[in-house]
């Protein structure tokens, strides 16, 4: 048979190039993966034949390719790339060059390096998500198998705050330290004990009000503040009843999967609007994965808290007892949360019922998908209102979307506080219920740097609009936000407006650099401003 020498030479060159690349690839995974696809593929042969019809005789008796459906490409070059395959009618065809940013790449980049697992401070008897041989378990008398492991981890934040409110009240200039330090004694996939301390900040009464005191140096006061302590912030056990007592249901026909927790534990309900407690002494029982009749997944939790209940006025109420029922259900379009709380306390601080409902969903609007959430919360004192217990309703909505062609995020939030809504429990450092409205409303929980705009939900309406820009994939972020609020009834100081900007950047595997700044104006007061810079270390 006649053979085109030029074609043969090209083919041979290609083959040997591929072989050489493959041989090189033996040296490293990345090199292997970056090597071109091994030749000659059938499609290559066809392409060569198309490029050089004279060479057809060099490829004898080519049968039709296997009818493997593949994706089409409307480019003129597509038939060369994927010869002989019919374009399925259900697949849209587009111009390849125009759609370069949308189209999946044809280039194999090979297996890329990934970061090594950062070790925890302490990992005993088993790494945390680390490869390695796993030891045999210990069988408890109940039948459960456990493998106790000890893991120590946490977060440290160190930074400088500057806050000039120009109101002759108190300006802030301070260096602050905060350490959240946790130890977990892990028993199994469901059972564990978590112990947490914050050795550089603690809660104290200041002028009769509970405040978080951070270890810091106050330049404005020219003195150091010592917040060191050994208080237990977190200490709870959690587990799964069915896992602890497997012999009660050896055939898995009973629904004994009741999760529970007991001890000092944080709790966040309704995005922190209803309960935002860093520590509650409580017991909870949870039933998960319930479904049926359109309810796709329901979780329900009962809670009783008997200690460490901080009220809406920030104060610790030693007499308060909380009884809660928290439910979350997935439906097709929305996730519904319905939460009920009864708080019992002395007449001085007040008892109350709390109810909250929310719907979280994505809505199609303007050819894009909007993430939305709507909350309705109400607090109803059983007797008279107190500073800790208000009667009121809070309506809160939030939405966000990413513009076409961009990973950035635009968000908008709004609230309307009717009368005086109060949360069932919240710690002083997190401020009022409205921190979720925007970064201008949120307490950073770091030193004396407060929220630029008030986050109390008392007879007011307001909202925020923000834009989050992602750079360097998502490791550098810039957020701009404008927010404001206005009292809905006459009050000594009513309107507030502010502008904030935040830059945050991940550095390596452990560090975050954070820069926050704002300017704000409150009616009858001068413009205030502030900035903080800090470094967060995760370990």
């Amino acid at each position, binding site marked *: 048979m006649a053979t085109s020498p030029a074609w043969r030479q090209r083919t041979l060159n290609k083959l040997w190039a591929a072989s050489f690349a493959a041989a090189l690839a033996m040296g490293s*995974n990345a090199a292997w993966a970056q090597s071109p696809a091994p030749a000659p593929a059938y499609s290559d042969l066809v392409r060569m034949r198309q490029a050089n019809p004279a060479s057809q005789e060099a490829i004898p008796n080519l049968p039709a390719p296997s009818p493997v459906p593949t994706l089409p490409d409307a480019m003129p070059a597509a038939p060369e790339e994927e010869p002989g395959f019919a374009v399925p009618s259900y697949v849209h065809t587009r111009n390849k060059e125009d759609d370069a940013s949308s189209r999946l790449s044809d280039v194999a980049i090979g297996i890329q390096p990934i970061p090594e697992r950062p070790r925890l401070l302490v990992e005993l008897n088993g790494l945390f998500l680390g490869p390695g041989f796993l030891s045999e378990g210990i069988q408890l008398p109940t039948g459960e198998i456990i493998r106790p492991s000890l893991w120590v981890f946490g977060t440290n934040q160190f930074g400088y705050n500057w806050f000039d409110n120009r109101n002759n009240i108190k300006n802030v200039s301070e260096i602050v330290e905060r350490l959240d330090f946790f130890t977990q004694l892990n028993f199994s996939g469901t059972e564990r004990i978590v112990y947490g301390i914050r050795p550089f900040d603690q809660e104290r009464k200041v002028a009769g009000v509970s405040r978080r005191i951070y270890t810091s140096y106050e330049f404005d006061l020219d003195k150091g503040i010592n917040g060191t302590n050994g208080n237990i912030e977190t200490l709870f056990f959690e587990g799964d009843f069915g896992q602890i007592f*497997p012999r009660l249901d050896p055939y898995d026909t009973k629904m004994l999967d009741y999760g529970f927790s007991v001890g000092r534990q944080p709790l966040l309900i309704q995005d922190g609007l209803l309960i935002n407690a860093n520590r509650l002494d409580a017991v909870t029982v949870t039933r998960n994965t319930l479904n049926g009749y359109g309810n796709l997944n329901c979780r329900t939790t009962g809670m009783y808290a008997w200690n460490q209940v901080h009220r809406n006025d920030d104060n610790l109420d030693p007499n308060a007892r909380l009884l809660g029922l928290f439910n979350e259900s997935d439906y097709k379009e929305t996730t519904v949360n319905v939460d009920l709380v009864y708080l019992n306390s002395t007449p001085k601080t007040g008892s109350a019922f709390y109810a909250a409902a929310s719907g979280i969903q994505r809505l199609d609007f303007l050819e894009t*998908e909007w993430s939305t959430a709507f909350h309705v919360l109400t607090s109803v004192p059983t007797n008279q209102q107190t500073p800790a217990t208000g009667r009121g309703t809070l309506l809160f909505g939030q939405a966000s979307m990413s513009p076409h062609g961009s990973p950035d995020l635009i968000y908008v939030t709004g609230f309307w506080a009717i009368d005086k809504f109060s949360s069932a429990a919240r710690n002083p450092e997190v401020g009022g219920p409205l921190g979720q409205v925007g970064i201008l409303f949120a307490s950073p929980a770091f030193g004396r740097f407060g929220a630029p705009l008030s986050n109390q939900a008392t007879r007011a309406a307001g909202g925020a609009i923000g834009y989050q820009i992602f750079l360097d994939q998502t490791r550098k972020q810039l957020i701009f936000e404008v927010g404001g609020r206005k009292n809905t009834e006459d009050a000594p100081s009513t309107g507030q407006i502010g502008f904030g900007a935040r830059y945050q950047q991940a550095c390596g595997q452990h560090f975050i650099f954070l820069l926050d700044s704002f300017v704000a104006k409150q009616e009858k007061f001068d413009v205030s401003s502030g900035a903080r810079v800090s470094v967060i270390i995760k370990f």
Partner: protein
Amino acid sequence: VSSVLVCQGPSSEALAGQQGAAPEYTTQQAEAPVARHWPRPIQEAIDAAHAACFDDDPFPSAKKCQKCHEGHFREWSVSPHAYAQLSPVFNAMSNALIKLTNGTNGDFCIRCHTPVGMALNEPINISNLDRPPTTREGVTCTNCHRINQPWGKISARHHLVPGNLQQPIYGPRGNDILEQVLANPDKYGPLKTGGEDPSIRANPIHRESIPFFQMTTPAFCGSCHDVFAPNGFRLEDAFSEFKTSPAARIKHQTCQDCHMGLVPGVASGFAEAPAARVGNVTTPPRKRTNHMFVGPDYSIIHPGLYPHNVRAIREENGPADQGLATMREWLQFDPHSPWGTEEFEANVPKDYPFPPAWADAKRRRLAREILNEQYQLLAEATRARHQILSTGYQLGDIEVERASDRGICFKIKVFNGTDGHGVPTGFDAERLVILRVTVTDSLGKVIHESGDLDPNGDVRSAHSSYVHNGRLPLDKELFSLQTKFITRNIRGSEKDSILTIPYSLDPLPYVRPETRPFTVLGRPIAARKHKQNLEANGGQRWAHYNVSREELTGNGPYVVDVKLIAGMVPSNLINDIQIVGFDYGMSPRQVANNVVAGHLVLHERQTVVNLP
């Protein structure tokens, strides 16, 4: 030299002697391919050490089990368990999550996909081409039959009992048949159970089959199929769904009843058949479970690499008589080419430019023979996959609600055909199950469609890069059962995400133990799932479609066609995880092509609409 190099420890004795001690691989071994460039004596020492390592393998390869358990091996070889580690989509997703969580996701994903590899402390992101057989076999024999404790919901972080082939295995039944085999050397031939004179020629066999009750229970499956991350994220809860299902509570069925029985997806009883053939003699028949475990996943890789075939793969530096070609060589054999076919080989010119590995016509013919076997087995698995998926997903009839010159409205019901769990279940946030709907006029023009794919093979959801970039409109009528991953934004509610990385909240996403009780919310603060599947307790959903007046062409009657389609993963996942690259030198587009090629039409309904 060898002491510098390799396999420090995965010997069965070493592991058995020190429970809890992690066998160490040296750096050199982790980067073993580098050694291929070393001088010949060093290379030979590496090979010898490597071979010794395999000879005393603490977790024997399924290929060793295959010698007696051919039937089990055949079923398993084409199972999703066997594909678990080979999957380039899985590996890329695991690596992407590790990258995006700054390394903190560790072995969370891969621990399930290659428990042996992780027990042997293998590097996470090496190519499967560089993994030894047992670890690339994914969920291999030892991953179930070397578990000796009822771990419960441990997300695959259970202890595997190390030991070579002759060490006891754990099974549902016990030792009675094995005792018969061992007691009858005249019938089954000489067997070695360990400790014999090495010079005696006999087939090695596990010396005992220890009954392990939990292996017969759903909880055994649940030890991997309820996947909870230590930060409280409930990635998969197939077992939890099962426990609340009528199948468990009322019928008292097990996972094994439907997934290891005669008919996939149906509690149809079990075969009665020999479990093994020892010395060419089959053992007495007994309850014989099916180990194919078909599910929604399917292979997108070279058919020489999967299904696992003892005739196909030769280990690099391994004996030449064990397997036809190395994995790298197989990747140079184009399965769609005519190589190895009689027609081609009879006419191929002598100077045809084959890769060196395939220059020999005999090898090419053997390769073709193996590939034909592979295609047969893959087709068998596809049929079984269709069987189980079409059982689980049911499609009602098209109901036309309105048809006039103002438009056509119709609906169709999709419902759960199983009462054992939701559909999809398990990794439901990446399972693509959609309705593809077309309305065609009498001239064949498609006037209305939904569930069609963009050029990447993606549905036109908000995750389609074509939709996101404004190149194609959003498919507002898309009916999908894919559960959504939801991540929290810094403000503005929670976002439907492809991966579970809450990067809006935190530029340095980290996986650490949740510091609040994760049972209370059933999830971490920053991420969760919004389930969209059809629940086991009578789950059903209507899909509604509206053809507007403007879309009508006047060329009636119109044909409405509805297909229920199941795919492994959506292309947008491939788009999101491509940053870390795919194994086997595959491009993202190749991966997407092959994923789309595996889409199955489970059910189809048609109706003709005449306008008055």
